[in-house]
């Protein structure tokens, strides 16, 4: 299968590969996917107290498109407020990387990773995040 130039570019020069220490209070970690499905993404976001994403790191087990999707996402979210980051749709990733239909699940995974990382950060902050939105768990409580 032929890959788009952008996928190849991200795959060859992935941005922001690596890990932050997981226990840092301002770091949210999202791990999505499963090894048996052939895709696991770990996205970490360093988020300021007022909810701005200051830095991002990823590690991905998956095909070239999965690696490229996560690499792109780390660039995309940097500098954004988490409220805005929560609205990022996978279609943005599909468009940017010219992903073919069989690779759309990679972009979905990347979208899920953003949400998972932010949710993790909120949990760590004890629901006192700067976002106006209340986490689900406190609503249910």
């Amino acid at each position, binding site marked *: 299968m032929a890959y788009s130039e952008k996928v190849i570019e991200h795959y060859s020069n992935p941005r922001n590969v690596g890990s932050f220490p997981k226990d840092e209070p301002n770091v949210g970690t999202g791990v999505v996917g499963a090894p048996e499905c052939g895709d696991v993404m770990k996205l970490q976001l360093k988020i300021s107290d007022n909810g701005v994403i200051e830095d991002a790191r990823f590690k991905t087990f998956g*095909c*070239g498109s999965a690696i490229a999707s996560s690499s792109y996402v780390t660039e995309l979210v940097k500098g954004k407020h988490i409220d805005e980051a929560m609205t990022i749709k996978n279609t943005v990733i599909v468009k940017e990387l010219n992903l073919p239909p069989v690779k759309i699940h990679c972009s979905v995974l990347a979208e899920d990773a953003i949400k998972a990382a932010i949710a993790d950060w909120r949990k760590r902050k004890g629901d006192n995040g700067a976002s106006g939105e209340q986490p689900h768990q406190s609503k249910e409580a």
Partner: protein
Amino acid sequence: MLKKPVYMDNHATTRVDSRVLDAMLPYFTEKYGNAASRNHSFGWEAEEAVDRSRNQIAALIGAKSKEIIFTSGATESDNLAIKGVVEFYKDKGSHVISCVTEHKAVLDSCRALERAGKATVTYLPVDKYGMVDPDAVRRAITDKTVLITIMWANNEIGTIHPIAEIGRIAKEKGIIFHSDAVQAIGKVPVDFEKAGVDLASITAHKIYGPKGIGAIYVRSKGPRVRLTPMMDGGGHERGMRSGTLNVPGIVGLGAACEIAGMEMSEEARRLIQLRSQLQAGLFERLDEIYLNGHPTERLPGNLNVSFAYVEGESLLMGINDIAVSSGSACTSATLEPSYVIRALGIDDELAHSSIRFGLGRFNTLEEVDYVTDRVSKEVKRLREMSPLYEMAKEGIDLKSVNWKS
């Protein structure tokens, strides 16, 4: 000087040997007669060439020349063998025994018969090396069994099945035994007569011959095997396969078989050496890599390994000047990895990480060294990027993780 890209996917197909091509060429432009034309020299010339090819093939596989029926390739041969036997012997029974790691041409022929209500099929499992147990074959036999179809050697993991033992069981029980021998012929010694194989599928393009030509071996005595043909027409090939013979292709298949017969033992020795070097090099440089398939009972040119924590397709992308294949099915809609690797009972994650190296006649030591180096570097790079590798290094048992997929 190393020529790139490096081709190391010789289970998929092979380059046509120039000696094969040379033998074929006159049959396109000079000796272009129809082998069925009985009344002029063009026809006689073509028929002679076809007869010569039949002899060359028969000599390689322990057959009589009249037992060779030409087809378009192994897919057709597999279809003809399985559907042809089930149809012809339908009054005797309708049970077929096969195996889960067979080629799709066999599995899908079996499934088509099941769907049509023409047969019930038992798909035998394999052990962790991909080998079928002859006793399991014996136990699966019922009084309705008309056909056993087990491949000689597997195209992904290279495992060679105990064909002679299965052949003995088939003979003892009076059941027809078909073997897809595509990967084995010309690579390891094959003798259908001795092995008790009654039907076998052959193709030219896996043995340095052209694509689009193959054959089916049909035993003529002890027992004489009958088939219902799939194509109606001029009654060529003793009525089993109508259609004007592909004379240049047939000449190519014959020449490929003759060369294989002359060079097989030397070539196998050389390929085993290259493969051992590749295997040793990779295992030396990398931790957590696993051999798929049988450690010894395997095709000389086959090396199938899983590089844990690295997804196969991404690895292929990183080594894009090397042609190999992967058991990862990242492109398939189901997201399921190779059914052959899964049948070995290994984790799906390792199946996604599997790479098949297929060494062949034209591979060199220099290429093996290049591939070893390139693959190890890329695996290391991708592991640095792999969250699974990181977790494993932190001592986390990946099986204990509750994955949210």
